């Protein structure tokens, strides 16, 4: 019977119920979309790294961590040194430059890179011939309706689009190394060295050997280990950002449910008096409000999950290249728990206020 009262109360003020649940839902959607975007971007980066075909990656030996967006920290002169090492079939220097928010451009010696990767798969056009030639991946070309032959302005430089390739290898933009070095004042400098071994099973042994020889200059990591590092837990800034969004979700959920329950308690003062006259104990009054808050949170969670799926579809339709978002179903219960926690916190004070109300005063409330 209490459940029926709870549902009827929520149905009776359906606009407020719907709006409250919607706000909770937007918070759930924010969390799920943020997680989906983070994972999508990391997965995309991992796939691109893996797609190069390299067995080992050499990066600056700094304290910035393995997943760094800093460019031009490695002297290009290390490339021939690395290439001469035993079991190294090919070494290629890559310069990475951020172009649009989170989209990067890679500068490479195209012929050398082809030997590592086995060749980019061109959907239209072909390899670069001149210093200002640009290759973009299919997703970016589709998102921006680009065609081979067009001029594309990036980094305040006019590029000649010569090829559109299937994605999943290097960055979305690929240009000649020397041009990008000149444009970004990174002459003779690169971001990392991709290494192809003659025997991939030797990767761990060669990583140890590189790290011994190049300590203080470069740090080697096998591709398998690098890919496993593309994880939210390995990026402190991202973890902190997710924590902030989660706290905000709890606070907003708390405020929304608090406001909804508080106004409900004030509006229903007389009804609370009736319940008390009928013999409802303070716990029963709190129980009713907590159940209402739980229903709001659960409806909000369902709305949030639906909104997150819709948001993913919209993002992928609008910016498939810039924002590769994925589903995060394992976070549904976590987001639900966050929303529920906020809602329960929000129901505590109104519930106590209602439970403490004097029955006689409540019955005379107009």
């Amino acid at each position, binding site marked *: *019977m209490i459940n029926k009262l709870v549902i009827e109360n929520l149905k009776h003020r359906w606009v407020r119920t719907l709006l409250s649940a919607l706000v909770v839902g937007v918070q759930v959607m924010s969390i799920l979309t943020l997680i989906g975007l983070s994972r999508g971007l990391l997965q995309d980066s991992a796939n691109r790294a893996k797609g190069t075909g390299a067995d080992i990656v050499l990066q600056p030996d700094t304290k910035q961590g393995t997943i760094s967006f800093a460019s031009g920290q490695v002297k290009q002169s290390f490339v021939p040194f690395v290439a001469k090492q035993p079991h190294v079939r090919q070494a290629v220097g890559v310069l990475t430059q951020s172009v649009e928010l989170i989209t990067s451009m890679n500068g490479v010696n195209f012929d050398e890179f082809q030997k590592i990767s086995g060749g980019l798969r061109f959907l239209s056009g072909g390899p670069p011939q001149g210093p200002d030639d640009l290759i973009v991946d299919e997703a970016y070309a589709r998102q921006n309706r680009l065609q081979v032959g067009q001029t594309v302005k990036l980094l305040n430089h006019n590029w000649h689009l010569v090829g559109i390739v299937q994605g999943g290898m290097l960055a979305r933009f690929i240009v000649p190394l020397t041009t990008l070095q000149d444009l970004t004042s990174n002459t003779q400098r690169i971001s990392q060295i991709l290494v192809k071994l003659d025997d991939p099973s030797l990767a761990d042994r060669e990583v140890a050997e590189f790290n011994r020889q190049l300590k203080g200059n470069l740090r080697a990591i096998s591709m398998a280990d690098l890919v496993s590092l593309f994880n939210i837990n390995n990026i402190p800034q991202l973890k902190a950002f997710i924590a902030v969004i989660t706290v905000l979700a709890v606070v907003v959920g708390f405020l929304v449910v608090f406001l909804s329950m508080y106004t409900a308690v004030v509006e229903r003062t007389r009804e609370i008096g009736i319940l008390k006259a009928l013999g409802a104990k303070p716990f029963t009054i709190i129980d009713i409000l907590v159940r209402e808050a739980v229903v709001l949170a659960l409806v909000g969670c369902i709305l949030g999950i639906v909104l997150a799926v819709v948001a993913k579809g919209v993002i992928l339709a609008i910016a498939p290249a810039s924002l590769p978002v994925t589903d995060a179903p394992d976070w549904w219960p976590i987001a639900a728990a966050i929303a529920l926690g906020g809602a329960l916190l929000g129901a505590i004070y109104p519930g106590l206020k209602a439970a403490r109300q004097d029955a006689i005063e409540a019955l005379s409330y107009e």
Partner: protein
Amino acid sequence: MNDIAMIQVRGLRKTYHTGDVDVHALRGVDLDVGHGEFLAVMGPSGSGKSTLFHILGGLAPPSDGHVVVDGLDLRALTESERTEMRQRKIGFVFQKYNLLPTLTARDNIALAQALGKRTSWPEGFNEVLELLGIKHRLQHKPRALSGGEQQRVAIARALVNQPAILLADEPTGNLDTENSDLVLNLLRDLNKRTRQTILMITHNPEAAAFADRTVTMRDGRVH
């Protein structure tokens, strides 16, 4: 009337503290209500009728004096025990009906039953509903019922847990003459058929005439 006292009140006092002022709402009430008696309490506004109603119903504790309802000494009860007393021994009927607007008539009755920890309607309750003439209106919410119908649903709600006493505070105060007579006749009929003890507060001498006995309150005392 019956000689066994359902309600026994001796020297009942109630003082409200509002700021620095003490308001003496009851100044020594003595009253006996027999088992199965229908008593009307009359008196002008501010005479203490409602305060007596609230204390007998367990909504407020007495400040001083001796109050026993169906064998329970109300001064000795904690707030939680008074709540339990309201569940089991008291049925309220208010002037403004006080039905929950979100529930149907049936659910209003069922909620009172659930709070009274009962799982089914008591024996003979269907006859009570027929007597009240609301059996065919139970699926409606209060807004779809007339004032008279709402008050009859409120009476059914008050009776569903077979209370020791039915406390009615101006039960016809919001009703027209026809519905007032209907409700008062029903209360009298219930009292005669089931020997339900009823204490009714009213301003109206015509309403009081339906009761077995009338007492008058003035300045916090029964005269």
